[in-house]
Every structure is written in structure tokens, then in C-alpha cells.
């Protein structure tokens, strides 16, 4: 078993609203998993439960064989192992590009400044933002912000990268540059869990596609199955609707 993350019977309720229902799900090392599904189906909540930005209401999250919902588990150390990229970028407004990429390394991982800068520059080069180290977030375009956010997450050298609709807040002409970077990361063998509405990207990059609807995983499998010949009627219905919108 080389599952990095294994989720068992995960549930999440907000008040009386059951958003995740008995989810079983796992991610293997080096795997790229895309999660698709209509808005409100619980995709973000699943991602946010995995890094504990939301507290699961029930079930287990096993990370490298350890139950991280255990009371005595260090959730801060665990979170450093997961890189998160948000739809709204969420770059720290009080730092420039370089600052964004080194503050976590220095304050959380306790790396020295030189070490942190070396690592940050390495990943800023990967996303093509190494020339912009002096820029403040508000001086960048959406696509540039998202690439910096990816570099910031990579700089922590996590085991798994989580992406929550990384291109949904971007102007159409900037979607490509971010997807290109993500594709390169996939080719480098990074373990990635990506919530996306980019069906073409999912088909090209994913090892596995997960379709969620109303808090449950309806269907999962290789992209050729889920995106081309889905088994479940609900998946087919979703794809029909999505493709019609294009």
C-alpha cells in the first residue's frame, strides 16, 4: 500500500446540511487526481477537510498510516505536508513575491533565510515568476498571482499539493499559463489533488478522475472512463450539461 492519504467514512455537516456523506477516498504517491462535479457538490469541503481547514464531523483521515484526527496528532506539522492553492490566490498582502515564498519556510519549517531564498527561487523559476520577486501581490495579474501561490506552496516542499479550482477566478486568457505550470508539476511526479472545471486539462493530466455529486463520490476511474464513457447516469448527465455550456 502506497496510499499517502486515505479517507474513510468521512462526513461533514454544517448545521443540518450534510455536505459530505460517508466518503471513502485515497490518493497514492505520485498520483494526479482531478475532482469534478457541479457547484455545491462538496468538492471544496472535501479538500478543506483533508487539510483540516474544516473539522470533519466523522470518519478518519489516514496520512502515511497515521490517523491525523487523533487528538494528540500535531495538525500544524501535518499541514506543512500539504500544499494548498486557493481559487482566490490568497497571497499575503504584506509581503512581496519572495516574502510570500519564504515566510512559511522560515517561521514554520525554521529554515534559515538563505536556505529559504534558495528553495523559493528554485520554485519561482519552475512557475516562471523568478523575475518578479520584488513585486507586491496587488501589482500582479491574476495568472501571475496564482503562479506565485503555487510556488509558495511548493516552497514548503509538501508531499501532496491540493488545488481548489485554481483557474476559476482567472480571466480566460490567463487560464492557460496556470494549467501549463500544473501540467509540468504533474510530469515531475508530484502528488496532486485538483478540483477543476477544466475537462480538457483533467483528461490530459489526471491519472484518475473523481466525480462528486451532492456530497458523495458517484464515480471514479481513469479519465477515459469517467470523462468519455461514464458508467453512472449522473456522471453522463453532468458531462452533458458541462459540455453544452462550452
Amino acid at each position, binding site marked *: 500500500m502506497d496510499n499517502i492519504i486515505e479517507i474513510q467514512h468521512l462526513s461533514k455537516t454544517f448545521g443540518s446540511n450534510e455536505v459530505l456523506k460517508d466518503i471513502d477516498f485515497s490518493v497514492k504517491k505520485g498520483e494526479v487526481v482531478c475532482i469534478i462535479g457541479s457547484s455545491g457538490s462538496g468538492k471544496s469541503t472535501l479538500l478543506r477537510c483533508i487539510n483540516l481547514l474544516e473539522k470533519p464531523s466523522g470518519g478518519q483521515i489516514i496520512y502515511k498510516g497515521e490517523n491525523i484526527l487523533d487528538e494528540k496528532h500535531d495538525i500544524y506539522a501535518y*499541514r506543512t505536508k500539504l500544499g*494548498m492553492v*486557493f481559487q482566490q490566490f490568497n497571497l*499575503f*498582502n504584506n509581503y512581496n513575491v519572495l516574502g510570500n515564498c519564504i515566510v512559511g519556510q522560515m517561521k*514554520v519549517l525554521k529554515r534559515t533565510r538563505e536556505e529559504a531564498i534558495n528553495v523559493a527561487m528554485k520554485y519561482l523559476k519552475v512557475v516562471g515568476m523568478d523575475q*518578479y520577486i520584488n*513585486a*507586491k501581490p496587488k501589482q500582479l495579474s491574476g495568472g501571475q498571482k496564482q503562479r506565485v*501561490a503555487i510556488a509558495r506552496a511548493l516552497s514548503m516542499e509538501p508531499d501532496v499539493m491540493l488545488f481548489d479550482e485554481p483557474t476559476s477566478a482567472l480571466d480566460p486568457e490567463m487560464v492557460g499559463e496556470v494549467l501549463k505550470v500544473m501540467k509540468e508539476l504533474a510530469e515531475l511526479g508530484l502528488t496532486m489533488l485538483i478540483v477543476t472545471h477544466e475537462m480538457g486539462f483533467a483528461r490530459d493530466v489526471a491519472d484518475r478522475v473523481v466525480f462528486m455529486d451532492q456530497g458523495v463520490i458517484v464515480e471514479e476511474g481513469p479519465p477515459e472512463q469517467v470523462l468519455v464513457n461514464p458508467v453512472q447516469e449522473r456522471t453522463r448527465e453532468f458531462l452533458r450539461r458541462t459540455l453544452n455550456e462550452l
Partner: protein
Amino acid sequence: MRLELIIKILTENWHMFLRGAGMTLYISVIGTIFGFIIGLIVGIIRTIPIPERGFKKGFLKVINWLLSAYIEFFRGTPMMVQAMVIYYGSAEALGINMDKYAAAIFIVSINTGAYMAEIVRGGIISIDKGQFEAAHAMGMNHFQTMIYVVMPQVIRNILPATGNEFVINIKDTSVLNVISVSELFFTTKSIAGNSFIFYPPFFIACVLYFVMTFTVTRILRFIEKKIDGPENFILAGNQMQVAKPEDMLKRSN
């Protein structure tokens, strides 16, 4: 306006005016700084997320109650009355003879703190939730998130409100004349009382107050600009190369 009268008063009493203005500035600078620090601490404590259960929950609730009592009390009563109660009260009821300048700084600080606490709390809750989440997602705890991500932004955002408090303090230290602190208003009153001439000394005081508040406002505006940094950034790495047109475009956006 009898200009020569004003000039006469000024030439005879300039050192007293200057000393009074100096005292006013001194009390309001120190009071604003202490008040700012009190406000930061109180505001940060009042925004600590309260856990769902346990000892810490009860403890935080009690602290929060005490802090909001402090804020409500000092915001809800005039500083002049507080000065009388604290200065004379400590002498008559507790037998402690406070130094009146120490009392003055204490009163201004604690008052400013009450206002600043609410300004800071407002500043913290107005920071986008995404900033907290991004910090938490990279493994920062609440304390680290506040120190490295949230508070620097809050402090920048509340600088204008802090400047406002500073200006108010410069003007409101005048009420401390009730405990005979020789700030500008008290000094002016004695000059007027000694010479039996009223409006010229107060006219001079008026100008001095304005010079002080205006200067402080300008200095704070300058600090704000300094914190914000330059409008544009410089591309790193390829100084030898001519900037590519698309980079220049990006930069101007």
C-alpha cells in the same frame, strides 16, 4: 485684530507657550503610543477564536467580559471626569499621591487604548478570511498567523485611525488642566490670567494646536507612504537585458 498685541504677548511669553506646547505634545505622543500598544493587545485578545469547550473557553470568556467592560467604561465617560476621579481619587481614597504628569499619561493612554482596541478589532475582522486560511494551510498556528500575516496588514490599515486618535489627543490633553498639568491650554490660561488680556493668548494657542496637529497628520501620511513602498516594482535578474514589451505591459497594469 490687534496684531501688535499678539506680537507683544508672544515676545513676552514665547518660552511659556513653547513649554506648554511641548508638554501637550509630550503627553499626547506617549499617551498615543501606549494607547496604541494597549489597543493592539486588547484587540488581539478579543479576536482569539474561542474553543468549543474546555477550560480555555471559560477563561477567554471572562477575559473578554473584563476587556469589554474596560472599553465601555472609558469610552462612555468624559476624560476630564476620569482625570478628576483617578488623580484626586487615588490621593483621597487610596492615599497614593500620584505624580500629576504620570497621572496625565496614564489617563490619556488608557483612554486611547479603549478606542484603539475597537479600531484594532475592526481591523482584524476586516482582514480577508483567505489570509488566515493561507497561513493556516502552510502550518502556521494562530499566533504566527497574527504576527507574520495579519497584524502587519492591520497596523498598516489602522494608521489613519491612529493618526486621528493622535490629533484628538493633542486637542484633548487640554482637559488635563483640571489636574493642573501645565500643558498648552493651562499655560495659556495663566498667561491670560496674569495679563488680563484674553483673546490674543488663546489665538496664539489656537495656532500652536493647529501647527501640531497638522504636522502630525503630515508625518503619519509620510509613514503610510513609506510602508506602502514604491508604486512600481523592478524586474529582478536581467538588468542587462532590455525589458520585454509584454513585461512592460504587465508592469503597467
